[in-house]
């Protein structure tokens, strides 16, 4: 156990957690190099790295890496981190390994907001759709919190209210898809699966800004989050403001998920899988925030690489591939609980 201190911010970490974090960062860097250099155009590693941070290496590197590959890769990294973090917070707060923003209504609300926007004013710009998604995500989250609020957030009710609202939102989305013209419906569908293609530096900036604001707040409350896992009474006895901390963390989780959805559309299963894998690697007893975020970034970037390597007839959004990763894990999780496995 060691403690990293930075002013009032102290992160207590086990050696193993630290090592896992470093390893994940190394893997992420490796994947980034692959993402920048792999492809039809031949670009050296050094040129790729230079072009990705804005140093001119002449054409075609400047355009292919600087304007296409780099923004796409950084979007995947940031959104993956946001999803991993959001999932880690929710799973810890609800003490349920199946709770993640894609399953308890937040992503469904974002989808309804986006599709409603497309239905009303057309798919003119990704940003208008994104604004609709954020409004949808925040609206449904407010509804879920209001429904589950009874002298503070009760985790179990939060999940149930989330499931209920998620199905209502899904039914609305499906209905809207049948009402809009078929071209718009195609656009809406593409958005609903989640994709990082065609993302620009503006997307990277938005995702970076959301993460830059929320990450410190989350880390500030990391101790409260870990203590809350021991139960409300213990947390109270240890001087944690249970209601306030839980509220702030829940809001942060919602905002992270909403930000991620706004940039890429609802990419499923990353928020479910990343925290669990991080937990397994670090062998921590409680939530591990930074490794979860790194794991989310690794998973999404890797999934996007797989998506890009597919033959031309099977060029599908990355959301399909993250689902393919998430499915076996999900089945394993469900099967394990049947053998009386814990949590």
């Amino acid at each position, binding site marked *: 156990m060691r403690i990293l201190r930075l002013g009032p911010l102290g992160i207590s970490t086990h050696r193993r957690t630290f090592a896992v974090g470093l390893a994940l960062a190394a893997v992420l860097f490796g994947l980034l190099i692959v993402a920048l250099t792999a492809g039809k155009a031949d670009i050296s590693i050094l040129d790729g790295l230079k072009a990705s941070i804005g140093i001119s290496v002449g054409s075609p590197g400047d355009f292919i890496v600087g304007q296409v590959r780099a923004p796409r890769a950084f979007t995947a990294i940031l959104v993956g981190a946001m999803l991993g973090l959001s999932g880690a917070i929710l799973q810890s707060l609800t*003490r*349920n390994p*199946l*709770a993640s923003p*894609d*399953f*308890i209504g937040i992503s469904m609300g974002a989808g309804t907001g986006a599709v409603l926007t497309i239905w009303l004013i057309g798919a003119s710009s990704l940003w208008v759709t994104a604004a609709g998604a954020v409004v949808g995500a925040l609206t449904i989250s407010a509804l879920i919190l209001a*429904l*589950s609020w*009874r002298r503070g957030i*009760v*985790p*179990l*009710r939060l*999940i*149930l*209210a989330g*499931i*209920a*609202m*998620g*199905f*209502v939102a*899904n*039914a*609305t989305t*499906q*209905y809207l*898809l*049948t*009402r809009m013209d*078929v071209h718009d*419906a*195609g656009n809406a*569908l*593409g958005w*609903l*699966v989640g994709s990082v293609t065609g993302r620009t530096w503006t997307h990277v900036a938005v995702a970076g800004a959301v993460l830059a604001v929320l990450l410190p707040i989350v880390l500030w409350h990391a101790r409260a989050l870990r203590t809350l896992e021991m*139960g409300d009474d213990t947390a109270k006895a240890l001087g944690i403001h249970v209601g306030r901390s839980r509220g702030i963390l829940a809001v942060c989780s919602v905002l992270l998920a909403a930000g991620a959805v706004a940039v890429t559309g609802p990419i*499923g*299963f990353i928020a*479910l899988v990343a925290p669990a894998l991080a937990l397994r690697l670090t062998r921590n007893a409680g939530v591990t925030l930074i490794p979860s975020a790194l794991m989310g970034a690794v998973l999404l970037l890797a999934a996007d690489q797989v998506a890009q390597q597919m033959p031309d*007839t*099977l060029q*599908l*959004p990355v*959301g*399909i591939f993250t*689902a393919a990763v*998430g*499915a076996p894990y*999900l089945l394993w999780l*469900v*099967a394990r*609980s*049947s053998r009386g496995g814990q949590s």
Partner: protein
Amino acid sequence: MRTRALIAIAAAIVLVAAVALSLAVGSRAIDLGTVWQSLTSYDPDSPEQAIVRELRVSRTLIGILAGAALGVAGALMQSLTRNPFADPGLLGINAGASLAVVIALSTGIATTFGAQVWVAFAGAGLAAVVVYAIGARGAAAGAPVRLALAGVAFTALVSSVTYAVLLVNDETLEQYRLWVAGSLTGRQNHDLSALAWIVLVSLAAGLLASRQLQAIALGEDAARALGVRIGATRTLVIVIVTLLAGAATAAAGPIVFVGLAVPHLARALVGASLPWLLVVSALGGAALVLVCDVLGRIVAYPGEIGVGITTAFLGGIIFAVMARRMKVVEL
């Protein structure tokens, strides 16, 4: 016993009222006298009577069929898994049906509506088996919430495959939209009597098996002592649930929450007696679907909103109230 019978009679009266509303309300309101005439002494020259006979009767029958099937399927599944959140729709049967239809459309297997019905039926049935495997093995009695979450996750998984197929095939999207939008309307000209027979036989079988199932709910030892064949009963009930949920989804399109909300309300009225619960759930499910369908016609007058969305809204509210009132047991 007498109170339960009275409640069943009350549910039947509600259903009759819902049927009357479903026949009379719509973009063209028709008074009940004309409705009655069109049923007893049909005059094909009267346009109003023609609307009732040609459009609204079949629509109402499909609503009754789907509602009763979903209500009973939910009640049986909840009893089988001892889980209050076991609703076929909630657990991904609609997603399974959608995926099957989409695959059949994109490969050109099912081009006619008649064929699509059976494809949807097969897809829903397959999903029901998977969902049961999750419900029975994955989430035992102690973890009702996990079952619901597993259902959501299963739905997400199947939907993403559906979306993938739709994204690759543009024409399929158009046909798929027609299938989803169908709901209770747009199916008048198709012969759904085979589905109706499946539902009727399954309802009867469910009623016959309900005593054995109730005994199993008391505990397996007690059931064995009462002479119940546990394995056979379980298998039979799974088959019944699969047939009911599959037929309902094939006939009326994706509907969620009916199988959850109706047995929940019915249980509050008739208690734990499974045979009565099934009877009241069948009547109540049919009434709920019809009322939701009528609501969809009133809310969007002179157009209409599909029954799938009105049931989702009404059922979502009931589900949320259930969640609020549930006793929270924490570690």
